[in-house]
């Protein structure tokens, strides 16, 4: 940024160039120093609060746990198909419900498609409140309201998904090319027609990608909803851990792992098809 001529020279060949001024350079060094000191301070704090005897014991405890998990009790698996199916149902229906609510929300929240500033604030409010609460907490609240079961799980997943899908989708809407929208408006199209012809085709790939990604996340999240009684395989997981039946825990882990793997594969395929 600063160009200097040493020794009062005005010859271009003597001109010197640096990216930062000296002042800015010192500030950058100070910022690094502060950051590293803070990191070391936190390290010390955590280390002081750790009971190192337990940590030293960790490898033995870990090995013990694994030995109890092996071999997995395969015969238990046939009791798990139903809860596993519930888990997938919760994730899929919850995602669909969430998308259905997030879709209009995103159009109301995007700066270039919202009908009014106040409506935009309201839509953003919905998105932020949905995002700020974890689905496990939504599930806890809903189990107290609706009673335990799949329904509470589905709604918990849906409520959490609104914020995720809504936020990413409204950002995608704000990034579209404005000229095709202008062109559609110039034909005399109504507001809704401008949305369906000018905006929607442009955000469709993003929308498909976001939705499938959220479904993928929801499969994983719905496996733990059972911990608070909102249905799915988490219920069995909780029971197995509470009874110290580690060989059952391990078979549940294996099933969850396989399910996530399959969902990952499906979402990769679908995403490819849409883009």
């Amino acid at each position, binding site marked *: 940024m600063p160009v200097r001529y040493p020794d009062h020279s005005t010859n271009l060949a003597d001109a010197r160039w640096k990216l930062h001024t000296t002042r800015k350079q010192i500030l950058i060094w100070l910022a690094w120093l502060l950051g590293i000191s803070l990191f070391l301070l936190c390290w010390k704090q955590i280390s002081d609060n750790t009971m190192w005897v337990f940590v030293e014991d960790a490898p033995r405890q870990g090995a013990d746990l694994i030995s109890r998990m092996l071999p997995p009790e395969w015969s238990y698996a046939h009791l798990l198909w139903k809860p596993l199916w519930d888990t997938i149902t919760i994730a899929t229906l919850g995602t669909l419900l969430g998308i259905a609510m997030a879709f209009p929300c995103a159009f109301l929240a995007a700066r270039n498609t919202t009908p009014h500033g106040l409506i935009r604030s309201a839509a953003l409010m919905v998105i932020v409140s949905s995002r700020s609460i974890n689905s496990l907490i939504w599930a806890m609240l809903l189990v107290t309201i609706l009673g335990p079961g799949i329904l509470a799980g589905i709604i918990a997943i849906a409520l959490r998904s609104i914020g995720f899908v809504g936020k990413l989708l409204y950002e995608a809407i704000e990034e579209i090319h404005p000229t095709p929208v202008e062109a559609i408006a110039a*034909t*005399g199209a109504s507001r809704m027609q401008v949305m369906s*012809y000018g905006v929607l085709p442009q955000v469709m790939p993003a929308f498909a990608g976001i939705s499938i990604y959220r479904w993928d996340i929801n499969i994983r999240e719905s496996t733990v909803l059972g911990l608070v009684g909102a249905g799915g395989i988490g219920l069995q997981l909780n029971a197995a851990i509470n009874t110290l039946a580690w060989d059952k825990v391990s078979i549940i882990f294996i099933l969850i792992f396989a399910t996530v793997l399959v969902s990952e594969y499906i979402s990769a395929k679908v995403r490819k098809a849409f883009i």
Partner: protein
Amino acid sequence: MLTLTDLTKRYSTGDRALTQVSLHIPEGQVVALIGPSGAGKSTLIRCVNRLVEPTEGRITLSNTELTSLSSRQLRCARRRMGMIFQEYALIDRLTVMENVLSGYLGYTGFWRSFLRRYPQPVVSEAFRLLQRVGLEPFIDKRADELSGGQRQRVGIARALLQSPEILLVDEPTASLDPKTSRQIMRLIKELCAERRLAAIINIHDVALAQLFADRIIGLRAGEIVFDGLPDQLDAEILTRIYGEEDWNTAAEPEAEIESDLEAVDTRVQTDAAGLKRSVPAVGAV
């Protein structure tokens, strides 16, 4: 047919894009609007269909005063003005046919257009237009699979499906190669003649403007500084529109590249520090 009276546009930043522009365009006249970047050419044509809201003044299209229309009335008025864009402004992910049919949106309801159920006469007209602009084989291709010239033809067909009275054309050739540019300009010119359409064409290329327009309007800093016939354009008028420049080398009809380069060479001098600086041409006219 189209009349602008004292049209003024000030942007909220305080920039005056247009100052008291008045002009009248009769039916069937093709007008080229030339001028330096930032002279207000785009603002002018966008004021006509109110993609940009004019600050003051009146715009009348065949007895309809456009500046005071409600949004529903504006929708109807926009159907009568077809617009063609520099970057084509097509919907990339839709097919050529869908893009052309979107020109009919102003006449149809939401669900009909959403479900792509257009009346048969409109579809037939779209087929005819696609044939006219030479895109028949590409009807089911996606718009982003086409070349620049083909895309602009889709843009033209879309504008014509509105059955407009006037075409508003914003830099139709700025993204195209010279040959395609001429073809596109010729196509626009022919279609205007076939349908007795008026057109305002923003264009940077003065030679193309002279070749294809009936009338040339020069805009500079938001004001009309020239309004006349294409063959009236000379170095003096170009200087009035664009500012000082050696117009004679550029205005030679078949200037050879080599002689052009020589002309540049003589104006380049080498200074003491070893830096090359081009000395501004003196005595342009």
